[in-house]
């Protein structure tokens, strides 16, 4: 049996904390980017993503992702943390329960991506169902394919920390849900032009942005699941890609609109982080910077196209940031990976595998999420009534105000 490495144990525990704090990042970013009448609703969605997501992942999700050696899906024998002790996890010099903890933190982030895209109009109960299904079954299935020894792992598909497994999965589920939900009242003018619906607090969004950014060190470097020479590479590529994404999005929006734009700069940074998530361990710092620069450009156009062309309303840009840039990052492995990239080695096979894996993920997650969203819509109802939406979800669904004071009484 492998001996536990204490330094690895410590790192993965700390990385779990860093990933965990991303939930606060999502909660504050999404709250800041939406209207105050829906703040309690956003926060309750984020809180229950953590609660319900963790619960179902504990019950069944982890087992589906990481037990057994099926090509398509894992088994049930690790359900309820059955057999997960402080003994090493497989070949890792890491206690199994530390591995479990890290994975549990990861799992819930996929669902939280959806919460941003469906904000300000989804029923709380409907969201709970989507979240539970996503974290219990859909995310674990893809995780099994890619990280759990499934068919994509077999084929050499590379997704270091989850551009596909976490971000694209969350992004495509967000796309499907936002599509079925339809846009918020007032999002499109009568002639179908997208209108801006400003959020309510840039400071809150800033807190979110920085917490997500710092959490990404845990997300990406933590995915090494050990402390070794790779950590510095991963952390540096991660950071530089974020810088690149912020830089190009800042400049591009400035050029397009005549003024620099805070929200889009934030989206650019996040796009850079999502894009580097798959290739962070495989590329050089310079390629990382390029991946980020491209991500920042992609996100600016993607946000626009998704609204203007596809008439899909995504209040925080989750589909563009996580879905599209998750895809970009996944392909970027095939382009720039030092040992297998098209531009670095001239070989196209890695890129093909990456495209296959990204495509397969889309083909599983998107239709399934559509079915779930439609199913909920037809049964319990997916969207709140017009009156509730206009009044805000906080007072209606939760009987609460995020800022309950009128007078400083």
């Amino acid at each position, binding site marked *: 049996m492998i001996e536990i490495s204490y330094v690895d144990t410590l790192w993965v525990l700390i990385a779990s904390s860093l990933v965990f704090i991303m939930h606060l990042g999502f909660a504050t970013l999404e709250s800041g980017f939406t209207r105050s009448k829906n703040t309690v609703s956003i926060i309750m969605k984020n809180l229950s993503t953590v609660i319900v997501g963790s619960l179902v992942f504990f019950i069944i999700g982890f087992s589906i992702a990481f037990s057994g050696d099926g090509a398509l899906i894992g088994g049930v024998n690790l359900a309820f943390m059955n057999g997960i002790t402080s003994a090493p996890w497989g070949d890792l010099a890491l206690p199994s329960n530390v591995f479990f903890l890290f994975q549990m933190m990861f799992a819930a982030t996929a669902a939280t991506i959806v919460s941003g895209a469906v904000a300000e109009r989804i029923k709380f109960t409907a969201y709970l169902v989507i979240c539970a299904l996503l974290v219990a079954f859909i995310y674990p299935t893809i995780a099994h394919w890619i990280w759990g020894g499934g068919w994509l792992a077999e084929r050499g598909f590379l997704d270091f920390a989850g551009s596909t497994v976490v971000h694209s999965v969350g992004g495509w589920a967000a796309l499907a849900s936002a599509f079925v939900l339809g846009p918020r009242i*007032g999002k499109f003018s009568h002639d179908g032009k997208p209108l801006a619906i400003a959020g309510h607090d840039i400071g809150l969004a800033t807190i979110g942005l920085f917490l997500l950014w710092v959490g990404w060190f845990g997300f990406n470097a933590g995915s090494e699941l050990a402390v070794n020479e790779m950590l510095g590479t991963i952390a540096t590529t991660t950071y530089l890609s974020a810088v690149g994404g912020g830089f190009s999005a800042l400049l591009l929006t400035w050029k397009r609109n005549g003024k620099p734009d805070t929200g889009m700069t934030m989206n650019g940074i996040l796009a850079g982080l999502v894009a580097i998530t798959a290739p962070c361990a495989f590329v050089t710092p310079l390629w990382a910077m390029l991946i980020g620069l491209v991500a920042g450009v992609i996100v600016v156009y993607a946000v626009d196209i998704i609204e203007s062309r596809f008439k899909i309303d995504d209040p925080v840009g989750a589909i563009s940031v996580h879905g599209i840039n998750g895809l970009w990052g996944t392909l970027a492995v095939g382009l720039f990976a030092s040992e297998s990239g098209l531009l670095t080695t001239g070989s196209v096979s890695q890129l093909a595998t990456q495209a296959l894996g990204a495509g397969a993920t889309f083909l599983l997650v998107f239709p399934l999420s559509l079915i779930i969203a439609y199913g909920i819509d037809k049964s319990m109802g997916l969207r709140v009534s017009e*009156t509730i939406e206009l009044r*805000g979800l906080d*007072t209606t669904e*939760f*009987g*609460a*105000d995020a800022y*309950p004071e*009128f007078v400083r009484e």
Partner: protein
Amino acid sequence: MKKIEAVIRPERLDHVKGALEEMGCLGMTVTEVRGRGSQGGIERQWRGRKYRVDLLPKIKLCIVIEEKQVKAVVDTILESAYTGEIGDGKIFISSVEQVIRVRTKEEEGSHNE
């Protein structure tokens, strides 16, 4: 000149504003207020305990116009602010003796020049 003060539901503001715009009534001053009327208040909860809020969020529109336009404006507001449920609001009309535009320092007789 008359002053029309209309207390309406916050969520109807966009609609009312649009309707007024269509009829060419642009000038207005809007205030965030709280109000109580026959609508008895609503229930909220806080850390598990329910409580009543009797002053509910409302929007007060203040529009100063010539007397002859009052009816049209009032009708437009009545139409566009209406939901039929308690809490739709009230309109108060009173007199304004003088209106002066700061930029031109001129007195106005008509609010839409």
